[in-house]
C-alpha cells in the first residue's frame, strides 16, 4: 500500500459512504408505516397527492434530515475525542455533555417550560451542554492530562445523571414522568423542520471546529510535548475539540434526546480500512455516524412492535456488544 493508493482508498470509502447515505435518505423518505410500497409512494407523490406530500415532506423529511445531522455530529465528535484523549474508548458521552443536555431538557419538562414555547426544551438542553463544557474547560485549563479530563467528564456526567434522577423522582405526576423518561430514551419521532433549523447553526460551527483539528490531533499521536514542539497549541486544540463537541452533541441531544454509542463505534468501523491517523478518520466517521443513525431509525420505523422502539434503546442494544468486543480486543493488542 503506497501513499497514492492510500488516498485512493480514502476517496473510495468516502464516496461509498456518500452513496450509502443517499440510499438511506431515499429509503427513509419512501418507506414507513403506510401500506404502500416505495414505488407506489413515489408515483403518488409525483401525481401530487397532497396527503402523501404532507407525510413525506413534513413528517419523514425532518426525521431523515435530523437523523443524518445527529449521526454525523456524534460520529465526528467521537473521532475527534478519541484523537484528543488518545483513547479508543472515548465518546461524546464520556465528557458528560449529553447527560448535561439531557438534564437541561428534563428540567424544561419538569418546570413546564416546554409547554410555554417549543424552543424551551432544546434551549434548556443546549444551556445544559454549554454549562457542562464551561466546567470541563475550567478543569482542563488547570490540567490538560487526558486522564484528568476523562475523570472530570465522569464527574460532570454523574452529577447530571443524579440531578436528572432527582427530577424523575420528584415528578409531579405519572404523565410528566413518562414524558421525561421517553424524551431521555432518544427518538427522531415527531420532529419538525424547526428542530432542524434550531440545531444546524450550532452543529455547523461545531463541525468546523472539529474538522479543523485534524492535523494537530495527528501530532498528538507523539504525545503532548512532541506535539507542542511541532507547533501545536495544546490549550487551543483542547478548546476547539471540547467546544466543538459541546456544540454538535449539545445541539444533537437538544433535538433528539440521548443517543449513545454511535460516536464510539463510527471511528472503529473505519480504522481497519483507513488506518489509525486521526485526521483521516474525522470526515468518514461523520459519514459513518450519519449512516448508522439513519439505518437505526429506519429499523425503528419498520420493525413492527406494539409501540415504536426508541432510537437510543436500539443504538445502545447494538452498541453494547460492540463495546464489549472492543474492550476484549483492545486488551489483547495493548502494548
Amino acid at each position: 500500500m503506497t501513499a497514492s493508493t492510500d488516498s485512493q482508498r480514502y476517496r473510495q470509502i468516502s464516496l461509498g459512504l456518500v452513496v450509502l447515505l443517499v440510499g438511506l435518505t431515499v429509503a427513509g423518505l419512501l418507506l414507513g408505516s403506510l401500506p404502500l410500497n416505495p414505488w407506489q409512494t413515489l408515483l403518488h407523490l409525483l401525481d401530487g397527492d397532497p396527503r402523501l406530500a404532507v407525510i413525506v415532506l413534513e413528517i419523514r423529511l425532518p426525521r431523515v434530515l435530523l437523523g443524518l445531522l445527529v449521526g454525523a455530529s456524534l460520529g465526528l465528535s467521537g473521532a475527534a475525542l478519541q484523537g484528543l484523549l488518545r483513547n479508543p474508548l472515548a465518546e461524546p458521552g464520556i465528557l458528560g455533555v449529553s447527560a448535561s443536555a439531557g438534564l437541561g431538557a428534563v428540567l424544561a419538562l419538569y418546570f413546564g417550560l416546554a409547554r410555554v414555547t417549543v424552543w424551551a426544551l432544546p434551549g434548556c438542553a443546549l444551556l445544559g451542554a454549554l454549562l457542562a463544557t464551561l466546567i470541563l474547560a475550567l478543569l482542563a485549563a488547570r490540567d490538560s492530562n487526558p486522564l484528568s479530563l476523562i475523570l472530570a467528564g465522569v464527574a460532570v456526567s454523574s452529577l447530571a445523571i443524579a440531578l436528572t434522577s432527582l427530577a424523575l423522582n420528584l415528578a409531579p405526576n405519572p404523565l410528566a414522568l413518562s414524558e421525561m423518561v421517553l424524551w431521555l430514551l432518544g427518538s427522531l419521532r415527531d420532529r419538525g423542520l424547526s428542530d432542524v433549523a434550531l440545531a444546524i447553526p450550532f452543529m455547523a460551527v461545531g463541525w468546523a471546529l472539529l474538522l479543523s483539528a485534524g492535523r494537530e490531533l495527528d501530532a498528538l499521536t507523539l504525545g503532548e510535548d512532541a506535539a507542542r514542539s511541532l507547533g501545536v497549541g495544546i490549550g487551543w486544540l483542547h478548546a476547539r475539540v471540547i467546544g466543538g463537541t459541546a456544540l454538535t452533541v449539545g445541539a444533537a441531544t437538544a433535538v433528539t434526546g440521548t443517543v449513545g454509542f454511535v460516536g464510539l463505534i463510527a471511528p472503529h468501523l473505519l480504522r481497519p480500512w483507513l488506518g489509525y491517523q486521526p485526521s483521516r478518520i474525522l470526515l468518514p466517521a461523520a459519514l459513518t455516524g450519519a449512516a448508522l443513525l439513519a439505518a437505526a431509525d429506519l429499523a425503528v420505523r419498520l420493525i413492527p412492535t406494539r409501540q415504536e422502539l426508541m432510537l437510543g434503546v436500539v443504538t445502545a442494544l447494538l452498541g453494547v456488544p460492540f463495546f464489549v468486543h472492543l474492550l476484549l480486543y483492545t486488551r489483547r493488542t495493548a502494548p
Partner: protein
Amino acid sequence: MILLEADQIRVALAGRPVVNGVGLRVAAGQMLALLGPNGAGKTTLLAALAGLRPFQGEIRIQGRSLARLNRRERARVLAYLPQGQTAHWPLTVRRLVELGRLPHQAPWHSPAAADRLAVASALERTGIAALAERPFDTLSGGERARTLLARVLAVEAPLVLADEPVASLDPYHQLRVMELLRDHADTGAAVIIVLHDLTLAARFCDELVLLRDGRLVASGTPRSVLTTHHLADTYRVTALQGEYESQRYVLPWQRYSRDREYPG
C-alpha cells in the same frame, strides 16, 4: 556560528527549583551531551531549551530570543525528541515521519514536493525506507527508535534536541543512532542530547555539560569533563578510562557506598 545560547537558566517544577542557573552554548556542526545522574535536571533543561517549560534566564536561537518566536517559527528552528517517545496510535512509518513536516505545512494543504522529499530523505538516512508502509506497533525496538528519529530529522531544523535517544536499545542500535545524530551534526546542524552512556558521550560529542542537582558542575571537551574527580563528585562511581583506536572509553566500574570517602 552559535546556534543556541542559554544563560542563567532556572526552571522550577511545582515550586521546586530543578535547574538552577545553567548556561551553555552550541555551534552549528557541534554535538553537545547533557550528562549527570538521575534527577540532575537534564530532561527539564532540555525541555526548557525546546521552549516547553517556563524558565527564567535567556535562551537565544540563531541570535533570536526563544520567548519571542511564535509556535510555528519555533517548531521550524528546533526539533525535539522527548524521553521515552512512543506513538499512541499505530500509524504507518511513513505517516509518523510525515508528522515532522507539520511546522512547514499550511492547514488544509496536502504535503508539497519539499515535504515528500524531506520524508524520503529521512527514511533513507535512517535505513527504514523498506518499512515505510508498516504500522508502528509491528516494529522492533530498534526500528521504532529509527522511525522516531526519522520524524525528528524530517523537520529539517537547524537544532535537534534529543532526550536519551539510545535508552533501551541494543549496542548495535545505540551506535547506529549516535552515528545518525553525528552525521546530522556534520551536515551543519547543532545537536543537544541527553545521555547516560559516558563512552558514547566521549566518542561522539564535541562538548559535554555535566549537571548535578540542577547546577552546572563542568562543561567543555570530553577530556576536561570526564575526570575521575567529576565522576566521583556527580555519579559517585569510579570508572575505567582508556583509549582504543585513539578514541576514549569510560567504563563505570564501582560505586562509592555512602560511608566510603570520595577521593579528593
